[in-house]
Structure formats: C-alpha cells, structure tokens
C-alpha cells in the first residue's frame, strides 16, 4: 500500500474510534455516568447502589445531563462536593499515579523481554546444512538395493 494511503486509513480508523468517545463526553448517558461514579458511603458504583446518597447523586446526574453538561463538567461538580474518590478511576497524582504508570511499565518491560528473547532464539538457531550428516555405508547400500528393487 502507498504510504500516504496507509496514513489516511490509519487516520480514518483513529477518527472512527474517537467519535463514540467524543459523543460520550459531550452527551453522556445516565447509565454511563452511574457506571463511572462511586457512591461515597457504600464504595460501589452508583448503578450497584440504592443508598440514600446514591439516589441523590443519580438525581443530580439526571438534572445535569438534562441541563446539557458534559461528562467532565458533571464529574468535576461531583468531585468538588465528594472528593476525587467519587470517580471510579485512580487520580493522576500522588500514590494513585502508580495505577497508571505500572501497567505502562509492565507493557514496556514485557516488550523488552520479548524482544530480547526473540533476539536470543534467532541467534541460537543452527545454520541449515546442505546435505545433512553422511549416511552409514551399510545403510546407504541397503537403501540403494531397495531403490533398485523398487525400480525394477
């Protein structure tokens, strides 16, 4: 494929993948938000909680969605009231940053290990020989005899 065309295809794929995320950011659904927000008293996501505060939070989210707020705006309002732990993902600072960095470090370390191992495997493979080891003379004689008998 032409490099320019390949780049266009990759760009189109990226846009296709980004479109739902963008729509979800601009117009989040109640179900999406309830699956991402943690009930501060029962420590489960809102969709799994029916506690009084969870019900209040669900009502708040419904009002904010109706008012046209984006996902980030709703999350920020909830964080301002209940703190960072209200969002069901680790924060990007302090100890919680490790939750983001460790998987990336693991993937990188895995790639390095795999690369090194693959390099070692390719280097250890013996060079292919042209004719292989010479046959035992007795065995060679018997093979010749069998072939001659087969051909006759």
């Amino acid at each position, binding site marked *: 494929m032409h490099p320019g065309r390949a780049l266009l295809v990759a760009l189109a794929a990226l846009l296709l993948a980004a479109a739902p995320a963008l729509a979800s950011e601009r117009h989040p659904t109640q179900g999406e938000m309830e699956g991402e927000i943690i009930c501060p008293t029962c420590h489960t996501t809102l969709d799994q909680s029916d506690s*009084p*505060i969870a019900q*209040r939070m669900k009502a708040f989210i419904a009002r904010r969605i109706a008012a046209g707020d984006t996902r980030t705006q709703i999350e920020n309002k909830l964080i301002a*009231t*209940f*703190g*960072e732990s209200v969002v069901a993902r680790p924060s990007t600072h302090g100890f919680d940053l490790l939750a983001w960095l*460790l998987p990336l470090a693991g993937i990188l370390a895995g790639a390095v290990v795999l690369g090194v191992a693959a390099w*070692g495997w390719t280097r250890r493979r013996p060079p292919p020989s042209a004719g292989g080891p010479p046959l035992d003379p007795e065995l060679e004689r018997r093979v010749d005899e069998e072939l001659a008998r087969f051909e006759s």
Partner: protein
Amino acid sequence: MKVVRVGGQALAVALVAGLLALLIWKVAHQVGNATIASEVHKGKDPAAPTFDLPRLGGGTMASSSLLGKAQVVNFWASWCVPCRDEAPLLQHASQRYARQLVVLGIDHQDFAGDARGFVHHYRVTYPTVVDKNDKLYTKYGLTGVPETFCTDRSGRVVAHVPGAVTRDTLNRCIQDALSS
C-alpha cells in the same frame, strides 16, 4: 544469554520486592494514625483536630474561633435518616446550653443545596461547616453518620456517641464535656 536470563530474573525479583514494599508502605500509612474515636474508647482524652473549613451558609470557620469553649461536634448529612431524628435534640441543646458550649455541625458527603434545605427544614441555628475531602471524618475515625463527639473547654475530646444521639446520650455527652 546467561547474563540476559540472570538480569531478567533479578529485574523480576526487584519488581516484586518493590511492589511488596509499596503495599506495606500504603497499608502502614493507612492504619498508622490512631483516630479520635479509638482514643476516646481507650479512655484517653485526645486533642480535637484543628480545622479551617467553609461554612454551609458561606464564609469559613476555623477551630481557633472556638478556643476555650466546650463543644458538641455532630457529623451529619441531609440524606441520613437518623440525622433527622437527632437534629431537633441538638438544636434544643444548642439553645439550652448556649452560654456554656457550642454545638458544631459537620456536614459530610452532601450536596450543598440539600444540606441547606435540611438546616432550613429543622431550623438549625448552630454553625455548620462542610467537611471537604473527609478530612475531619477521617481524623475522628467515623464509620458513618451520624456520630457525635463532645470536647471540654481545653479542647480535649472526652465523649463519643456513635449513631444518632438520644436525649440521654446527648445529656451524658454534654455533662462529660462540662464537668471535665
């Protein structure tokens, strides 16, 4: 190849050891500090935590403004059903003991509008601060709301009532605070 293998093994061991150390540090960090509630239940009189928090009605309030006064510190939330039962008792106590102590409400995990509605509905006139990021909740070592602590004039926490106060438990808490 042997060097690579040994290096890989050393890296794996170092990684596991590092993660283990992080886990131990985190656990030790979380349980390292004794809470006010646990200290009171051991019979000690720990110093009440200091604070500087937003007031529900606007502005801020610092613990330094309460120096020299006995206090009834009540953690509550508008969505908390037992809090509705105890609010009239606390309001009555705040008026009855107005010259001797301060009742302080600490609103926890709540929408400001809901909290203001609660205060208006139960005609609460004593000051209420908003416990941003659960700082006081954590320091006091609560397990839920409502819970109430009483401090004496020197700022020592002398009594703890887990759950909603009743007339009796609130009176006992106040007497502990005033008699210390």
